[in-house]
């Protein structure tokens, strides 16, 4: 009986429909891998082979010159290190604020709770928009500082609600017994709620980290100093160099007459992608869990 519930079609052979579905899903999965294989192939091929359009999914005239160029360029390594530090600091600040906001808001007895919650949710549906935020950052003197990449996005109301939902789902009796034992609210948060919420906290940290790592718009708006460029802005400059197509964006992004070969562009794409590829498989499970908590209960 148990087996029957688990597997709806026990012992049945694969039908044509089953095979068609499998083939379709495999084909779709390939479209997610092929671009990266192509990037790797380009980055490991000689420029002559690329210009002659000989390169497919396998490198032609195998060479690691491009990677040597990137790794010997201190700029690129500096930007990588800086982006990693920036991402970590951003994530810590975000998580601190999110936890500080989520825990009190789970307490129904808190005076003003509904008002605060509505004020928070309102900002999810209505915002001042790009320009007032830009002027604000300018007036706060944060232009061309790291703070402009950390503070304006330092808490997501959406993530806050996911975390609040998770806190609420913890058994109330745990907190009650702790408070009977004389534990303060802060003690309950630090000793009971947080240790039990580690999976959710991991998920949300990853959401924040990926957002910061992939973030590009704020850097484009607020940062003109080269040493404060995060990885994505640097990558954008490399890719849009000598693209010609790019004049719509005001030319600020292109490096003028300096020619960047395709293999270097592909290698830079890989350079920016690899940090995500490294952590991604291990953490994918948490992402899914996090979205589910938010989706089912939120």
């Amino acid at each position, binding site marked *: 009986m148990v087996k029957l519930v688990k*597997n*709806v079609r026990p012992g049945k052979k694969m039908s044509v429909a*089953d095979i068609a*579905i499998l083939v379709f*899903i495999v084909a*779709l*999965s390939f*479209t*997610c*891998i092929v671009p990266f294989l*192509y*990037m790797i192939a380009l980055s490991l091929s000689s420029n002559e082979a690329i*210009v002659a359009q000989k*390169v497919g999914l396998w490198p032609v005239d195998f060479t690691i010159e491009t990677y040597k160029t990137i790794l010997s360029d201190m700029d690129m390594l500096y930007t990588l290190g800086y982006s990693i530090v920036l991402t970590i600091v951003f994530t810590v600040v975000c998580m601190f*604020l999110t936890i*500080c*906001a989520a*825990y*009190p808001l789970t*307490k129904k007895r*808190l*005076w003003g709770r509904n008002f605060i919650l509505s*004020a928070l949710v309102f*900002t999810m*549906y*209505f915002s*001042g*928009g*790009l*320009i*007032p935020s*830009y*002027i*604000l950052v300018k007036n706060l003197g944060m232009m061309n500082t790291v703070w402009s990449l950390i503070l304006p996005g330092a*808490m997501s109301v959406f993530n*806050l609600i996911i975390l609040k939902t998770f806190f609420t789902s913890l058994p109330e009796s745990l907190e*009650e017994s702790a408070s009977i034992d004389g534990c303060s609210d802060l003690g309950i948060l630090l000793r009971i709620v947080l240790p039990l919420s580690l999976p959710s906290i991991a998920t949300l940290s990853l959401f924040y980290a*990926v957002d910061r790592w*992939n973030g590009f*718009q704020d850097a484009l708006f607020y940062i003109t100093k080269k040493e404060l460029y995060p990885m994505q*802005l640097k990558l954008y400059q490399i*890719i849009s160099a000598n*693209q010609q*197509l790019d*004049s*719509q964006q*005001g030319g600020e992004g292109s490096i003028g007459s300096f020619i960047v070969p*395709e293999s270097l*562009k592909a290698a830079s*794409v890989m350079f*920016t*992608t690899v940090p*995500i590829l490294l952590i*991604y*498989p291990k953490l*994918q499970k948490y992402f*899914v869990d996090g*979205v*589910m908590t938010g*989706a089912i209960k939120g």
Partner: protein
Amino acid sequence: MKAVLNSQPNQVGIKRGKLFLLRIKRDALLYALLLLPIAYIAIFKYAPIYGLIMAFQDYNIFEGIRGSEWVGLDVFRFIFEQDSFYRALKNTLVLNVLDLIAGFPAPILLAILLNEVGQARFKKITQTVLYLPHFMSWVIIGGIVYLMFSNSGMVNHFIAALGLEKIEFLSQKVPWLITYIFVGVWQNIGWGTIIYLAAITGINKELYEASDMDGCSRLRKMWHITLPGIKPTINILLILQIGRMVSIGFDRPFVMGNSLVSEYSDVISTFVYRVGISSGDFSQATAVGLFQSVVGLTLLIGANYIAKKLGEDGIW
């Protein structure tokens, strides 16, 4: 426990004002925790909303909001006379509607197909791969698209090998539009399934067993059990997406667009960037942003209202 706490002060007969102070004092620590997040929201979310006043002024960066001259609705009048504004608005709507048509049903279909797969290992591996594009920034995707779809890229190489004529995916309007939409669907199709797969897990298994007894075909089960089972989720996501019809992210059109296709790729977000930040016409750009926010909120409320009228669950 709570009841005791709450009723005690009343029994002693403390007045309302004092009771309020007591409650604040009891929860002082919780309020202290809330202090920083509230300060954050006030400064970085509500101050920009106050900044929307600029849309009704001839904003001068040196005078600030207090010193700038009020012009009423002149800024809006000026914008609504601009052809470039209508072009940006039209493009935003076109791209969003196409995204909705192509991109909204895709994850639903994929989720239903994934649900039909029995082999747990296969399912897990393909899901891992399918979620991957979601974690790539638009700069990375834009770079890949440029390298793959340009005239010398792999896709045209392949087309040429088939003996067909090369397609200028990135510099001709209609091919660019198709590429833009296709890449969006590709980026989101995998990740979008998660929420539907979660909803499918919530469907009562007995329904499937009963229909097996009745000898229902697989398609009938999809149509009569799975789809109705995830209908509330579909509704909510649809309402949210309709609410976003006039707003469009910045990164995707900015990175993928170029001057040869700006007839199609110039949207509200890139328009605001160009007018506001590149040219410094802050009032105009703010007015466009405000227009977008208000229309977006109206659409969201409207879609929610209609959904409720039709007897479906809304987001409120």
